[in-house]
């Protein structure tokens, strides 16, 4: 691994250096794969990996137009490309998780999925409920929530990725959390009790 900073690697990639780009890919492919998987509710690891590859191919093509800015992470730039690709993907292909809301048997994760092999059936069911609830959120709320909860981005960084203001991010997270809470506690959603654990007891 190299300790060259991200923006230097992108600039080298812009000059046609695939080796520099490989370091950048190694550094961020996990985060991008996770974002794509969660944003689209994919249970199929191969599908998520194909999309993550598309994100990096688009980044390679866009590298000559990249301009480093103070306070703006290269990861934000990559996540922004990923968000655009996910949104376009969703328009073209049916969202797999939408089927899971109808309890489509095809939506049950198979062996080559995002899940770890030792994951239990119960945990899989819980994860499926959360994936389905996330898919119910409007894209902006979903993106903001994923970037905050899983990627630990600040409001300013999230605003950069989804092209909005910091105060809009605050409102998006509030609305997203409210909707998720309602979805996960709604009776018709039928989550197993563990999906929304008894956090009141835990947090005391």
């Amino acid at each position, binding site marked *: 691994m190299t300790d060259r900073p991200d923006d230097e690697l992108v600039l080298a990639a812009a000059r046609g250096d695939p080796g520099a780009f490989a370091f950048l890919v190694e550094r961020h*492919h996990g985060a991008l794969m996770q974002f794509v998987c969660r944003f689209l509710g994919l249970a199929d690891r191969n599908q998520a990996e194909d999309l993550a590859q598309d994100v990096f*191919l688009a980044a390679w093509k866009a590298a000559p137009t990249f301009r480093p800015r103070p306070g703006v992470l290269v990861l934000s730039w990559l996540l922004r490309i990923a968000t655009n690709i996910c949104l376009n993907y969703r328009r073209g292909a049916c969202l797999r998780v939408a089927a899971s809301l109808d309890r489509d048997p095809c939506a049950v994760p198979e062996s080559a999925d995002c899940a770890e092999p030792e994951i239990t059936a119960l945990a899989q069911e819980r994860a499926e409920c959360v*994936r389905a609830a996330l898919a119910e959120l409007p894209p902006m709320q979903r993106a903001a929530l994923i970037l905050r909860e899983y990627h630990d981005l600040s409001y300013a960084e999230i605003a950069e990725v989804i092209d909005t203001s910091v105060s809009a991010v605050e409102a998006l997270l509030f609305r997203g*959390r409210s909707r998720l809470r309602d979805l996960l506690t709604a009776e018709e959603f039928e989550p197993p009790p563990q999906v929304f654990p008894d956090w009141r007891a835990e947090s005391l």
Partner: protein
Amino acid sequence: MRCRKAKQLVSARKDGELDAARGVALRTHLEDCPACQQAADDWAGVSAALAVLETPEPRPGFTQRLIVRLPTRQIGRSVWSEWLEALRPAPLAADGLALAAGMLMAVWMNGEQRQPAPPPGDPTQTVYVESFDPLPDGSAAAKYLSIVTESGR
């Protein structure tokens, strides 16, 4: 302060994004409002629920599989690249020029690559951002989209 606003501020406080002034206003509201005091538990519950999702990792060889797919970029020491190199360390005043040079160069390189046309339905080809505000001119994403469309022609 209305309860809806207070609950939003509790959400911001959980993320460490609440400034001191709003923090004081929130504390005042919470002292008299048990309903909003519960919001902190609600948001913690949402985080706990989200934590059940597994963390997918790319399979080994992800980077190698990607690198062999990268279209080559033929730059060399051309007039364009020398011009760009000269402009790169320049201060803000030259930014517009460097940007224009970058755009020209990117368009020129895309012409040089002679890539096969992308297959129909390529997700990067659709210049559309669902429910997002229009991309501001000069933003990285706007440039990204302009390049992507350019290469598809």
